[in-house]
């Protein structure tokens, strides 16, 4: 071993010991102090009840399929609409002026209103027009509310991606005799989309969670189902079960997004 390697090995041992001790102390503090709280017994019974969890977990998983379904239908629609809005906002031709105004207004409105409000207004408002079944379904209009809101954010991310492509790429493409449209489609957009994949992954994760907001206008998805079980069992454990199911999906997805982000950072440096 070289001097340097010996030194670094010693440093690593030291870091490991310190990290181990501090982690043990924190866990010990939680295990010792939290049960000393006066309400602990009650909280344990109503939030961490093993029996209730075992009874309700399979049904919660069943209800989670509704979330997955709504998510699966919304995500592609959001990607397409978001991209169209981004392109509309960057359209240069004067004939597209109304489109540009519309794009700007769209993003302002749907980024400016809380998601839950949009879900309420569209989810209750449009079926209120007296649409016949099944077109008055809150599944449809709640999903539309999510699509509109998320498209506004996704469009802004696409726009930042378009701006992140170096102008020399445009120069090179134009110098070959390509039209503005061809330059955008063949050269700028493919690079822009690639640049924003990690950010869009984060939007997908957020969407997966926000699907639960539809519960407020009717659909029985996992959060609503947990609420039903809470009433039936007079116990909050079903909510904890729902949280666990979300985490099983979102933690790997978040890690993956972080990994993509780190990889891209490395490629750029």
């Amino acid at each position: 071993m070289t001097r340097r390697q010996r030194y670094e090995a010693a440093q690593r041992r030291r870091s490991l010991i310190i990290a181990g001790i501090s982690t043990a102390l924190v866990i010990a503090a939680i295990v010792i102090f939290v049960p000393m709280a006066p309400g602990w017994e009650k909280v344990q019974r109503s939030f961490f009840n093993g029996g209730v969890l075992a009874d309700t977990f399979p049904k919660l998983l069943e209800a989670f399929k509704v979330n997955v379904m709504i998510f699966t239908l919304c995500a592609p629609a959001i990607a397409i609409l978001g991209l169209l809005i981004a392109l509309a906002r960057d359209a240069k031709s004067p004939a597209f002026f109304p489109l540009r105004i519309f794009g700007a207004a769209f993003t302002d409105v749907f980024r400016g209103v809380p998601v839950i409000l949009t879900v309420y207004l569209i989810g209750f408002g449009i079926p209120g027009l007296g649409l016949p079944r099944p077109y008055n379904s809150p599944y449809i209009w709640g999903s539309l509310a999510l699509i509109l809101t998320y498209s506004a954010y996704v469009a802004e991310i696409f726009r930042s991606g378009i701006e992140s492509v170096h102008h020399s790429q445009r120069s090179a493409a134009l110098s070959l005799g390509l039209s503005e449209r061809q330059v955008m489609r063949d050269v700028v957009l493919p690079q822009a989309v690639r640049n924003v994949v990690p950010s869009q992954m984060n939007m997908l994760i957020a969407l997966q969670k926000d699907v639960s907001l539809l519960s407020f206008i009717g659909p029985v998805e996992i959060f609503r189902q947990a609420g039903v079980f809470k009433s039936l069992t007079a116990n909050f454990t079903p909510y904890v079960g729902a949280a666990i199911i979300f985490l099983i999906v979102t933690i790997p997805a978040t890690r993956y997004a972080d990994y993509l982000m780190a990889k891209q950072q490395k490629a750029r440096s």
Partner: protein
Amino acid sequence: MAKLELRGVIKRFGDVTVCDGIDLDVEQGQMVCLIGASGAGKSTLLRCINLLEPVEDGAIYLDGEDIAEPGLNPQKVRARIGMVFQSFNLFPHMTALENVMLAPRRVHVKSSDELRSEVEELFTKFGLADRIDNYPDQLSGGQQQRVAIVRALAMRPEVMLFDEITSALDPQLVGEVLDVLLMLKNQGMTMVLATHEMGFAREAADKVCFLQSGRIIEEGPPEAVFDAPQRPETQAFLARALK
């Protein structure tokens, strides 16, 4: 009539006049080298000729047709004039072959097979046959720059513009790119170069123009400009550049 004629070309960025009334004749098959300090206006002049920058005033004649006419569709003109950049500017999401095929595929109506065999021939000619399916980041700087040259050539341009194409290369890679320029010259390509390679300009150019503050203040055959410069500014620049 020269292949390319510039008359009183003026380009401003805000208050800064980058090209201040430039006159230049480039004959068919000539290689013209623009030399001068950074910021003298060489690159901007090339970008103006390719209509990447709209000129403020003056005329640019390509085969007698004024391409600086405001309102003219620049696309057709750019397809006739190839340009290669200092920083290569290959499209990173495409292979070397896709980089080269993109524009001919979009602009010309030509069968893909015919085009492909034509392009493969170009790759072979420039010693890139085994690099055809590589992405730009798998190529050396010299290879990238040669692919960029092939990309411009695939459009069968009448004039080629080279904007300091060896400035971003490691010294040992400069030669392979300059060799390509000599090959093109021998084939009779009309070329305008902005360059800091004084040795190359002296050897290969038909005409050398010295630019300062947006004007061509001295021009002539390389022997005249390099060996007996008339203007004190040219003398001072060359004394520094050839040191």
